[in-house]
């Protein structure tokens, strides 16, 4: 990894307000290929808002988000046309929702869900699409025999795996994840985290993960950003922020984890 490479994703002064209510304020960040950035904070901290600002879903009141395309060209995420951003969302980017129902087509089989992105970018060979879908189901540790089953028949953890497979099939370089393990049983969470860690490492995926769970952040992220009231109060290496928090709020957050 060359030290002088430019960031894959960069935010400068990102500010988003909902009328008089501040969503997030003056946020800077940069993310390099293969890095996982965790954004932690409690409800209302602005972390989900920030995530959606970075992915271009929210319009900004201030600041800029820049993404480095595969060509090396740096593009302003919000200045892009809707079709360009949509294309990015289908190929180079992934968005994993907390509730898998928000990220899956519930009326389409598992294979159809995983194959959709491939079809959306022009794949027209049924056999190949199906084969790739099977590969990915196995990669996310789901049985290939379930390829024709509807998502309704899957457990929450499996639906989440399906959502992950659906997103990663086009080998994106950047994934946005909003509480990917929220709402899952603890053991299911653990296995999902393992899976994510493995995939992130195998694909060299850069990730922005929003979570309120510091254990998830420690498990997955290299770097951490702590948010409170829409602002970033501390940022740094995950182990540093968790082992030697400097800001009062970070210290409170860390001390709130019950140790075994």
């Amino acid at each position, binding site marked *: 990894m060359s030290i002088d490479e430019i960031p894959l994703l960069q935010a400068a002064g990102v500010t988003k307000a909902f009328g008089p209510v501040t969503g997030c304020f003056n946020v800077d960040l940069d993310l390099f290929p293969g890095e996982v950035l965790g954004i932690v904070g409690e409800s209302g901290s602005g972390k989900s808002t920030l995530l959606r600002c970075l992915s271009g879903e929210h319009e900004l009141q201030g600041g800029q988000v820049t993404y480095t395309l595969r060509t090396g060209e740096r593009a302003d995420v919000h200045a892009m046309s809707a079709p360009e951003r949509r294309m990015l969302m289908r190929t180079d980017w992934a968005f994993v929702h907390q509730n898998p129902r928000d990220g899956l087509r519930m009326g389409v089989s598992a294979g159809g869900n995983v194959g959709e992105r491939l079809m959306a*970018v022009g794949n*027209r060979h049924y056999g190949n699409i199906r084969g790739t879908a099977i590969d990915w189901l196995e990669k996310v540790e789901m049985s290939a025999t379930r390829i024709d089953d509807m998502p309704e028949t899957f457990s929450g953890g499996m639906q989440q795996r399906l959502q992950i497979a659906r997103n990663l099939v086009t080998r994106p370089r950047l994934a946005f994840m909003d509480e990917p393990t929220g709402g899952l049983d603890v053991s299911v969470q653990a296995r999902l985290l393992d899976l994510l860690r493995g995939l992130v490492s195998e694909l060299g995926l850069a990730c922005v993960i929003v979570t309120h769970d510091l254990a998830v952040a420690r498990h997955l992220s290299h770097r951490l950003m702590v948010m409170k009231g829409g602002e970033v109060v501390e940022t740094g290496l995950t182990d540093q922020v968790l082992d030697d928090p400097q800001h009062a709020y970070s210290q409170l957050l860390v001390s709130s984890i019950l140790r075994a």
Partner: protein
Amino acid sequence: MMKTTEQAYNFAYLDEQTKRMIRRAILKAVAIPGYQVPFASREMPMPYGWGTGGVQVTAAVLGRRDILKVIDQGSDDTTNAVSIRQFFEKTAAVQTTDRTKDATLIQTRHRIPETPMKAGQIIVYQVPIPEPLRFLEPRETETRRMHAQEDYGLMHVKLYEDISRHGHIATTYAYPVRVNGRYVTDPSPTPKFDNPKMNNCPALQLFGAGREKRIYAIPPYTEVVSLDFEDHPFAIQQWDQDCALCGAGDTFLDEIITDDRGGRMFVCSDSDYCRERRDAGHEGDQAGANSGEAA
């Protein structure tokens, strides 16, 4: 009596301002092949679901010297075809025919005539649901965005699902097509058998959906390709039988139950085409059995 009735209607029922509005929509539709143009669909003297879209399009383009043919499932004699033809006879006093080759304007429900279309003809399709993606994506906001951004992955997902469930693409009518390499369009509930006729057609093809308030069009000689997969290519329906009346082996056949003992026969769905063949001397193996009685 007839004189009074004639004077009670504007030509072809619609007022001139409405026709103007519809013609504008049609021009836009022709300029953007396959794109669904919204229009201010009027209340017609028949309920939604009975061809009001087709009737409005026909009314807007009909001229005094037009010769109109109206078919329903290939037949000129069904109730709907008869009603609509009489509607225009009454309100426009135009000449009507049941011969495809003599018609200048053909309004159709669910079939394209077997007789090849000629340059200068207009065919008007009655469309119930104009949005090909509707059953996959119920949100209008989403389908509009998909069309605008040429985001048609979902359409192929539907075909994928068919193959995974049935081993083949199970859609047999209203089979989606890509028009002019750009918009994915619903050809109306015509059988997929008819899809090839739409490609590079010399006639102007107009589509009207009254309830949904959309008009779309395919100008003459436009490329129309049925969606498929490389390893599951589009194929039209085939029958083992030929038409029992005229012997045609390459038309869309209807199955007719002839008695209560399971007797059945297959005849051309396009009644005009079948009669033309019989007039020319062709015979099927039951040519004598039923004289000119198609469904």
